[in-house]
């Protein structure tokens, strides 16, 4: 399964305005891993994800998905393997019906219409919104939009799911439903988020970014429970690990 390995070597990227967003990021993610990428605002999380999906290209260093380096030439292949769920589902849903939106990716790969339909129905079924297939996406609720955005990516049959803030602006129930859904996926998952509780539940490994560098990379339990490290990186302990807001007692770790 070497083609599922994601290898980043010394990634450096500077935005046109001069801000150094990535400053030597390196890691290796193997098949089936769930990895949380956390860090304060501006730490470089979203920029890193864009590199993984081949939306941005590094000034220095390289990313390899399996044996294939992410370059302009390899993009069609990379984009079939890496599915990216954007932070704002409204950016991802632009057709007139949910069905057409989910079919957009498979149709771009010129699959026969029967296969497209099969994939659309199965992706919508997976995220539980098959009944919304004929609705215009802009009339859906936040949670439904998020589910539709994930379905658009699933329909491409990616090996690797890359998500930017998947739980942002979701109500608690939708968030819980999404976490359960993501738990059921067997894909390699890379999730950039501020929702540390979700990382705790979903990802066995966490990479902490600060100022475009990897500060630490290791088992989630060890990293997210390290209050000092969290504080240093502009984060805090997951709410689930903090004391009870009523009586103040600390939870045993």
């Amino acid at each position, binding site marked *: 399964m070497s083609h599922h390995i994601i290898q980043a070597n010394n990634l450096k990227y500077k935005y046109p305005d001069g801000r150094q967003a990535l400053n030597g990021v390196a890691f290796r993610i193997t098949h089936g891993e769930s990895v949380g990428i956390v860090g304060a605002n501006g730490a470089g999380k979203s920029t890193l994800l*864009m590199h993984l*999906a*081949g*939306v941005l290209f590094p000034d220095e260093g390289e990313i390899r998905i399996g044996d294939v380096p992410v370059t302009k030439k390899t*993009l*069609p292949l990379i*984009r*079939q393997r890496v*599915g*990216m769920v*954007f932070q*704002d589902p409204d*950016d*991802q849903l*632009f*057709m*007139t*019906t949910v069905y*057409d939106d989910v*079919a*957009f*990716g498979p*149709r*771009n*790969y*010129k699959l026969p*219409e029967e296969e*497209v339909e099969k994939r659309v129905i199965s992706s919508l079924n997976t995220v539980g919104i098959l009944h919304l297939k*004929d609705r*215009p996406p*802009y009339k859906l609720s936040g949670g439904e939009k998020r589910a539709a955005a994930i379905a*658009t*990516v699933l329909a*491409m049959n990616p090996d690797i799911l890359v998500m930017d803030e998947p739980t942002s602006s979701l109500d608690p129930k939708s968030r819980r439903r999404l976490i359960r859904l993501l738990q059921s996926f067997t894909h390699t998952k890379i999730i950039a988020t501020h929702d540390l509780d979700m990382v705790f539940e979903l990802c066995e490994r966490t990479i902490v970014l600060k100022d475009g560098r990897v500060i630490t990379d290791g088992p989630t339990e060890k990293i997210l429970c390290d209050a000092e490290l969290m504080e240093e990186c502009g984060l805090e302990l997951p709410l689930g690990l903090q004391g009870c807001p009523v009586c103040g007692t600390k939870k045993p770790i």
Partner: protein
Amino acid sequence: MSNPAESLYNIRILDEFADKKSIIHDVHPLMKVLTTGAYLLVTVSFSNYELSGMLPLIFYPVIIMTLADIPMVPVFKRVLLALPLIIGIGLFNPIYDKSPMLVLPWITISGGWVSFFAILIKGFLTILAALILIATTGMTRIASALRTIRIPGVFIIQLLLTYRYIAVLVEEAGRVVRAYSLRSAGEKGIKFRDWGSLTGHLLIRSIERAQRVYRSMCCRGFTGEYHTGREKGIGIGDILYFAGWSLSFVIIRYFNIPEMIGWVMMGVRR
């Protein structure tokens, strides 16, 4: 504009009409595009003084809208948006062309006024026909129809992305205006001195948003072509649709039907 959700709904209403099912919606998009093209050609080919001859052209939009079950009011409202532009084009005709065209016992109508109304009607009909095409076909299917007649892909992408980004622009404008009105202490409208910064801000926001949308399209394998899937081939009915309408347009162009009806009514024979 003050209510972004409403303006967005309004801008997308044509797309919703396009998803309806009707005998007109079922016609192959290419035939509808060609029919609309023929209609536009015939409409603009009337000279600015042939006011009565072009009146039967109104039947085409009325019949299509009725058969396709498209409500008239929202579509007419959209045509009205373009009306100031048309009025601007014909505005000076009544001033410069004062030669009498129609002399009635109580009023003399100058050629300028006739040509002004002709421009108004032509503008109204052509915009209406274009909107009806979108409302019965949908932009993506129109694009695929244009692709089949080998219109270069780059033009089609321009068309599709422009259409797509109007919604993005309206959405962003709605947010900017809402944020402005919440802090403008009950004043109506936007102060002139704030226009510059607001439009600049709007431009930057829209570009950023458009970039994100484009990126998400690229991430799903978009390479410059929209594929709409499930498009059936051109049938005999589709060809008859185009041929029938084209023939009626030609008849309307070469025979002044209202005038002929007038002769019949008044029992005048040539």
